[in-house]
C-alpha cells in the first residue's frame, strides 16, 4: 500500500533553562508562565538572571528596580542587582 502524506503538523514544547519548579519571587508565578502583565510566555516576557544568582521575570524585576526605594538591590539578597547578558542560556541547569 502506498501512503501519500498530504499534510503533517508538528508540536513542540519548551521551557526556560532554569530550575524547573521555581517561581519568580516577585509575582510568585512559575518562570515558565508569564509575569502578571503579559499573556504569552516566551521571548516577549523573558527572564533576567542576576549576577547574584537570583532570577525574575524581566518585567517584574524592572518594576522593582524602577522604584527609588529598591536602591537597585536584588529583592532576595539585597546585593546590587546586575544582570547577566544572556539570562536563559547563561543560567546553570540544575539536574
Amino acid at each position, binding site marked *: 500500500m502506498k501512503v501519500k502524506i498530504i499534510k503533517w503538523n508538528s508540536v513542540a514544547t519548551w521551557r526556560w533553562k532554569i530550575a524547573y519548579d521555581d517561581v519568580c519571587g516577585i*509575582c510568585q508565578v512559575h518562570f515558565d508562565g508569564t509575569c502578571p502583565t503579559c499573556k504569552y510566555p516566551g521571548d516577549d516576557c523573558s527572564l533576567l538572571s542576576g549576577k547574584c544568582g537570583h532570577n525574575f521575570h524581566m518585567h517584574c524585576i524592572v518594576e522593582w528596580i524602577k522604584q527609588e526605594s529598591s536602591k537597585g538591590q536584588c529583592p532576595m539578597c539585597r546585593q546590587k542587582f546586575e544582570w547577566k547578558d544572556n539570562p536563559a542560556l547563561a543560567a546553570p541547569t540544575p539536574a
Partner: protein
Amino acid sequence: MAFATKRLGKELKKLHESLPPGIELVSAEDFQDWLLDIRVLDANPLYLNQTYRLKFKFSAQYPIEPPEVVFVNTKDRPIPMHPHIYSNGIICLDLLGSQGWTPIQNVESICMSLQSMLTGNSKNERPEGDQQFVANNRRRPRDIDFYYHDNTV
C-alpha cells in the same frame, strides 16, 4: 490592578490551604483589605491568651509597594503592648516601610515577623511620644518617617 490581584490571588489560595500556627485568615473579600488574626505562640506573659487583629491594605502596586498593616482594636482584640506599636495600632517596623520592604515579602511572612516581634519583646510600654502621636497624626502609616528611638527592641 492586574499585578496585585494576581499575586494576592495566589497568596489567598495558599492561605486557604495551610497557615502557620497562630495565624488565621479572618476575611479577604476583595484584593484591597484583608483581616488576619495572630497569636504569640510562646508563654510571653505580655501576650498570653490574647489574639490580635491585623488589617492589611494593598495598593495596586503591591508587592512592588508594601501593604499598609495596622493592628485594629475590637471588642476582644486589643492593640498589643510594644515599644514599636502605637496605641492606635500603627506599627513601626522597618520591613513595612519603603526602606525595608522587598517584594519577596508576603502576607504570611509579615504575620510571622509580627509574631516574632511580639515574642521577643519584654517591655510593657508604648513608643516614646505615643499620646501626642496618636492625638495629632493624620498621616497614613506609609507616609510616616519613623524615627527609631530604640533599635535594640
